[in-house]
């Protein structure tokens, strides 16, 4: 690990100030950042430890939603009785990610900002446009079984690894930010992460020094919801494909449907066209098939991940059918 200096400011304002100096990086749980520092991918010169700022609580919002503090641990989120009752797909997504130890350490804000697990991003001996812009993408010609089938570019085919962010995308959550100018702003979680395009070194739309302070969950959606994850082993593995789904059926007709997919793109994938296909359609297998096809309509496989296209389609169909049926 390269040398760095360390400080633990005691206010949000001081933390944001400290992080605006060149080479400064926030650290909270550290489970991804320290990992990347050990393999020399992340090279901060100054660490600003935000882990003790008063951002750990999960509180009710005025409109009946929840405000999840950015420092609430993954375990805090999954264990919260309100999350379990009102947003079960979020609790499911969290407990399907990482290990219990990591969930105790990892924070909500850090989970959103974790980096891809593309092995070429992790290997500093290999070209990688995300790590070193302009050096090339080793995954394009390499072993790319885990990589993107939607929204990728010729510069990067990495996927975002978070389960939690996929659930929050289906819940139409918002991310609350504190900016270096001192102002707070909010943005829809679907606008936090970006597609790689020609600048895969930028995972998110955050400006330098901006600090995630909370995730705002709107009131729980009507209908039934579930998070389903397909992976190579039954526990402690990243998703091949995952889906967060909410389905509200009234008198046999879909009144509202929300979908988000993980393991398929550089960001949690929000298939708006499939959602539109579902609303107003009969809650029948044909409608779910149509939605599944819409999800993968523009999918493009790499050499090793062709299986992800039918897998994503079938996972959407099966998940929607289960929500409508059982």
């Amino acid at each position, binding site marked *: *690990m390269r*040398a*760095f*200096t*360390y400080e*633990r400011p005691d206010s949000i304002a001081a933390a944001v100030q400290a992080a605006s100096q060149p080479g400064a990086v926030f*650290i909270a749980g*550290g*489970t991804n950042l*320290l*990992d990347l520092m*050990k393999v020399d991918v992340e090279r901060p010169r100054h*660490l600003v*430890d935000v*882990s003790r700022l008063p951002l750990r609580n999960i509180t009710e919002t005025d409109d009946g939603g929840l405000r999840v503090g950015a420092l609430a641990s993954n*375990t805090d989120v*999954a*264990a919260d*009785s309100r999350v*379990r*009752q009102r947003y*079960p797909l979020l*609790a*499911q997504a969290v*407990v*399907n990610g*990482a*290990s*219990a*130890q*990591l969930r*105790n*350490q990892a924070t909500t804000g850090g989970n959103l900002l974790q980096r891809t697990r593309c092995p070429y991003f992790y290997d500093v001996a290999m070209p990688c446009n995300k790590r070193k812009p302009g050096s090339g993408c080793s995954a394009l010609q390499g072993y790319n079984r885990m990589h993107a089938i939607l929204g990728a570019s010729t510069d990067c085919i990495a996927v975002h690894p978070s389960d939690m962010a996929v659930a929050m995308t289906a819940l139409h959550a918002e991310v609350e930010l504190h900016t270096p100018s001192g102002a707070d702003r909010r943005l829809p979680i679907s606008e936090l992460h970006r597609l790689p395009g020609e600048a895969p070194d930028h995972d998110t739309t955050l400006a330098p020094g901006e600090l995630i302070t909370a995730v705002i969950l709107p009131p729980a959606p009507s209908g039934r919801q579930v998070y389903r994850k397909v992976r190579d082993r*039954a*526990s*402690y593995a990243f998703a091949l494909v995952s889906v967060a789904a909410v389905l509200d059926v009234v008198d046999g007709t879909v009144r509202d449907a929300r979908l988000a997919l993980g393991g398929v793109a550089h960001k949690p994938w929000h298939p708006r066209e499939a959602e539109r296909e579902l609303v107003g359609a009969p809650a029948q297998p044909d409608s779910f098939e149509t939605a599944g096809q819409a999800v993968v309509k523009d999918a493009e496989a790499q050499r090793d991940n062709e299986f992800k296209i039918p897998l994503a389609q079938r996972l959407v169909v099966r998940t929607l059918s289960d929500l409508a049926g059982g």
Partner: protein
Amino acid sequence: MLGMASLVTAVLGRQLQAQQPQANPSLQTKPATAPGNVAVRLTVNGQVHDLTLDPRTTLLDALRDHLGLTGTKKGCDHGQCGACTVLVNGQRFNACLSLAAQRDGESVVTIEGLAESGRLHPLQQAFIKHDGFQCGYCTPGQICSAVGMLDELERGIPSAVSPHLAAAPEASVDEIRERMSGNICRCSAYPNIVAAILDSRAGRPG
């Protein structure tokens, strides 16, 4: 005899004939005046330690190299194997993925701190009874992880295999296997590890 030494090291977290290890002077950090060093106060197994550390020092390296508590093992050093699992303020953490500086003022329990007045912790006793290891390298992490895991179960924290998210989880084989998935055993002693954990709960409800 070697097997016995390995067993004692694994379960108690210390070498045969070694008493509670003291900090190794040759491994102490640079003096406090060195630029960039940080002062860190750790309470480890009830004992307060004031350390001056290079900020890069992980909690794992602080325990092993600065406090001489080598019961906590370094396996992958990347949070994948769980050999370094310790309890931080009662919660299980991977000590390799935490900076010691971040734990300043906090309380850490390692495998060396589980036995009380010469009496093994029920989980240590159960691992011996059920032969919950072969080489023993992952065992300190397995046992510390199991202590934290049983507490999480008691607090009703759900897992990926809990059938009903809103209900209190039960200490079933499936739950234990899922909840211990962050601790890898390369010898694959899993059946005995699960049996030991289940047995350690004997007499408890649920």
